[in-house]
């Protein structure tokens, strides 16, 4: 492994990054969070230039492999790769090809045989990226696996908060909605508690995590709350989650109307949070369901900023993954 830079150029300080894959966020160290955030800051600077391109990943090939439809996250990764001058190929396998027996492992090997070095994967089943990583020579970046994790979302949410608050430590953060099934919630819980925030999960009890015991490593740092006003009191950040229609179909809630009446984030409800509380949403927002139209377009809403921050964070992740020591 070539550690030293050639003596013909200035020797740079090299990154301390040892992940071949980005599957999870639950074992990130504080210094890893810091590195991602600092690098994302530099990448953000590139996004404000007239020429939004740097040659850092020139000649590298990156594939997106999405088994779940997603225009937003996929294009975010695709653009991030292109801004770093990488070549990108997009594979949209439908969920049906999973059941048709075209194995994930075969698809992986096919892509690698074509020279793909980084695969950004989204899959409806938890653990799919772990399965891929066991068989991959390339690097796997988890863009969402079932209800388990969405690491880059949590990183961009963290980065967004830090653009508006001096620190995450000590913040009172509310995650509003179906946190039981949400990979965005799971990853954010790991990230935010690691940085010292306390997290309140608010929603109907059937949509909050079931089966937690005091032996859960984060037990003391999360609170479950079914009353929205109690949850929002004094909150510094409110993250609303997308309400999936399938939850009603699964009978977990009687109907969306009732969810809205109890848990929609309206201006009245937001008023019990701190006056400078931040409002966030991973997108896409269901118009007027999770968040009232007023709040979504209001001055406290960072929803649009999250999108551009997502691009910077994904550029940072691609840069770090492409060049860490592969342990």
């Amino acid at each position, binding site marked *: *492994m*070539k*550690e*030293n*830079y*050639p*003596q*013909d*150029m*200035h020797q*740079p*300080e*090299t*990154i301390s*990054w040892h992940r071949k894959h980005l599957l999870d966020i639950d074992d990130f160290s504080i210094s890893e969070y810091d*590195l991602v955030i*600092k*690098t994302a*800051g*530099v*990448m953000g*600077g*590139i996004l404000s*230039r*007239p*020429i939004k*391109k*740097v*040659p*850092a*990943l*020139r*000649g*590298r090939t990156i594939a997106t492999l999405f088994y779940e439809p997603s225009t937003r996250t996929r294009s975010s990764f695709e653009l991030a790769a292109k801004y*770093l001058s990488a070549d990108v190929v997009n594979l949209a396998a439908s969920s049906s090809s999973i059941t048709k027996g075209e194995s994930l492992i075969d698809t992986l090997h096919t892509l690698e045989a074509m020279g793909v070095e980084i695969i950004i994967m989204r899959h409806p089943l938890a653990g799919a990226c772990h399965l891929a990583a066991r068989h991959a020579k390339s690097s796997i970046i988890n863009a969402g696996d079932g209800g388990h994790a969405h690491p880059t979302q949590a990183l961009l949410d963290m980065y967004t908060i830090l653009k508006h608050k001096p620190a995450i430590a000590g913040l009172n953060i509310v995650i509003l909605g179906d946190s039981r099934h949400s990979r965005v919630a799971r990853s954010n819980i790991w990230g935010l508690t690691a940085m010292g925030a306390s997290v309140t999960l608010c929603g109907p009890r059937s949509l909050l995590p079931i089966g937690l015991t005091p032996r859960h490593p984060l037990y003391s740092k999360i609170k479950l709350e079914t009353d929205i006003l109690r949850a929002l009191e004094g909150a510094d950040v409110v993250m609303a989650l997308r309400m999936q229609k399938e939850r009603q179909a699964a009978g977990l809630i009687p109907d969306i109307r009732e969810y809205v009446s109890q848990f929609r984030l309206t201006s009245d409800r937001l008023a019990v949070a701190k006056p400078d509380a931040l409002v966030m949403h991973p997108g896409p927002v269901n118009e007027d369901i999770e968040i009232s139209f007023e709040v979504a377009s209001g001055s406290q809403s960072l929803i649009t900023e999250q999108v551009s921050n997502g691009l910077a964070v994904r550029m940072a992740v691609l*840069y*770090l993954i*492409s*060049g*860490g*020591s*592969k342990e």
Partner: protein
Amino acid sequence: MEPTIVLNREDIRRTLGRMAHEIIETNKDLLKIIMIGMRTRGVPMANRLAANIKAFENAQIPVGVLDFSLYRDDLGSRDLQPVVKSTSIPSGIDGKIIILVDDVLFTGRSSRAAMDALIDLGRPSAIKLAVLVDRGHRELPIRADYVGKNIPSARDEEVQVKLTETDGLDEVSIYKKIESGK
């Protein structure tokens, strides 16, 4: 092997003074100049040159910082990427005269990367290069416009620049490299 000190603190002070005078002499319109220090030691050097020019001519030349890691020609062929740091230029560079400032000019690859980075930021009317030390062994057709000292060196020697802002003292030394066992 003991390093040989080529420039001491006083030498460096005089050299930077002389370079500032050269810059003043060869640029009719000082107000078109932006000094951009290449990370890392080019930055304090650029600051000192700008301070000298201010002292000699009472002209305030803006100073910027350039991180060219993303433009290196050895990315991807090494296993560890460099830490990227910020680039900050005080104003647009279109139509300006950019003086890139670096401590050592060797193969020319850093300067090439820095120029590519600059050109993605805008269209300067000219780019000039100011270096404290030129140690020869160019691998690209690059030459410095302002040179502090020419120090011929062998390829297996290392020329080390230390500046107070980054290293606690001002000194330029040369020594033979021991084969690194890393």
